């Protein structure tokens, strides 16, 4: 049973304060540092488990760090507070990155990360809300997070809560038809409290997205579906903070975060084979040096 780690919550608050009150440079620096720590943690977890999805973990890291340490109105000491911002990692295979972010935010003791994918660990290869505080819904099969996020955004409105709902989908995941049902729905209901972040690393498991089932012009498609579209460098924390600002009008917001799969480690970056390849001990040592 994972429970709040109060020491870690205090550390999270310190970072959060800097993001909220510090200078732009200080803000960018602390978020970059959290991203570095998450990437190092992911490396260790995958090395230990001998399994995981390192490429996608690294492409989404800066988005997760920015959301948890700079944007989401949450209290990791009270994961079930009825009024809270919600986050769903629809690309659930990047659980290592999410677990690290949740642990560093204080949802549970980071020591538990050592059990990732071990026998009977709560930290399954894909996130489980019943076992992991901070996880809002179980993900793993692709194309599920966005419809659930639409329901959460509608629910918040019906209950009169000013909660915002964030969901991260992989770009390859946007090939799932259920996402396009949900895109229509969110626009129809004018869910300005909903933000979809697309981790646009341009690679899917087997090939480049554009060679498999082309998504471009993605921004135009999202705009045509009635969304307010923002396109940013998904590794620029300052740009991400700006992109995660509330909707300008009544439309839901789609942030296309242009990222590099495997970002942060030179030999892993933008290579299709690193979707779920496990680094050797030597490669881990090399990677840790790059992330020092």
């Amino acid at each position, binding site marked *: 049973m994972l429970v709040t780690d109060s020491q870690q919550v205090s550390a999270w608050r310190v970072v959060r304060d800097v993001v909220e009150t510090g200078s732009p440079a200080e803000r960018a620096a602390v978020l970059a540092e959290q991203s570095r720590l998450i990437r190092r943690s992911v490396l260790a977890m995958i090395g230990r488990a001998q399994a995981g999805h390192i490429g996608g973990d690294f492409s989404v890291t800066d988005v997760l760090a920015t959301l948890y340490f700079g944007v989401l109105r949450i209290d990791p000491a009270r994961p079930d507070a*009825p009024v809270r911002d*919600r986050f769903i990692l629809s690309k659930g295979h990047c659980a290592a990155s999410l677990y690290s972010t949740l642990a560093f935010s204080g949802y549970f003791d980071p020591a538990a990360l050592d059990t990732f994918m071990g026998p009977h660990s709560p930290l399954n290869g894909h996130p*489980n*809300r*019943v076992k992991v505080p901070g996880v*809002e*819904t*179980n*993900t*793993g*099969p692709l*194309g*599920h997070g*966005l*419809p*659930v*996020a*639409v*329901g*959460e*955004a*509608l*629910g*918040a409105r*019906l*209950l009169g*809560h000013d*909660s915002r709902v964030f969901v991260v989908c992989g770009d390859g995941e946007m090939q799932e*038809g*259920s996402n396009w*049902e*949900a895109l*229509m*729905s969110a626009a*129809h209901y004018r869910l300005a409290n909903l933000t979809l972040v697309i981790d646009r690393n341009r690679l899917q498991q087997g090939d480049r997205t554009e060679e498999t089932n082309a998504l471009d012009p993605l921004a135009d498609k999202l705009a045509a579906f009635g969304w307010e579209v923002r396109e940013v460098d998904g590794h620029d924390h300052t740009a991400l903070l700006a992109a995660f600002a509330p909707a300008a009008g009544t439309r839901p917001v789609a942030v296309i975060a242009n990222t590099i799969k495997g970002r942060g480690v030179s030999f892993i970056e933008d290579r299709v084979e690193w979707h779920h390849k496990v680094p050797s001990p030597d490669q881990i040592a090399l990677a840790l040096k790059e992330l020092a």
Partner: protein
Amino acid sequence: MTLAEAATAATYDNRAAFADELIERARADERVVAVCNDSVGSSNLVAFRQEFPDRLINVGIAEQNMVGVGAGLAAAGLIPFVCAAGPFLTGRALEQVKADVVYSAHNVILCGMSPGMAYGELGPTHHSVEDLSWLRALPGLDIVVPADRHQTRQAVRQAAADPRPTYIRVGRYKVPDVTAPGDRLERGRFQLAREGADVTLIGAGTLVSRTLAAADLLAADGIEARVLNAAYIAPLDVEAIRAAAQTGAIVTAEEANISGGLGAAVALTVAAQGGGPVVRTLGLSDFAPTGSTDMLLEYFGLTAPAIAAAAREALAV
């Protein structure tokens, strides 16, 4: 219920009771909402929409999104009744039912409207006869198959008060009352509809009145049949099944494919304990030909005389 009574009894479309009770629940608890797939009419939600326009979420013809939205509403703290014709709710959105609702343990009430072969001539695409097989494979999902309007009302009331995910089959094919309004629908229990020790007939939904009539036919031959109303398929009433295994034979009858529904569950339970009697499972084993619901029930041997014949055969008398 005798055959003669069955022929003259008043019959009811369970959707009316469903709609009435849902409105009552919505009046009592503002967290109750309805979600549907362009099925406001066929899910009998017109009156609900009139009274609670903001609490009826019609996502259009998009069942995967519909079930995901239901899970999200539950996650936000609401009590969503997700309503769609059975085949599309359970077939098209099966992975959403599995991952977003049941595995995620979100309090969603899945309402499979017009189940079984209620859509008769529209054919197998519109028949919901695989739902029980598919859903029984999901641990933690309550599966309710009300036999009449009273049980339908109670199923809705209980689901609204229970935090577990639930699937309710909401019948369209008209059925007579087989319970009284005051009879309690107990979670995980078969209801004893008729006492008897020679053979046990276990019916679900539309088949309960027919198994009662079959028991009447058997009584004329001096065979006393126990009749169980399997309103809950999950959790399964293992105790009642073990007791039924003490009678001379068991016959199950359901408007569903026999590969994994009630009959399979009963047979598995009896076989697991060993030394049990013959178990005959009546239901579908093929896609239906073109025909009305009445004709198809007859075609698949789901009538009182056919159930009685199966019991006689099982008893080898």
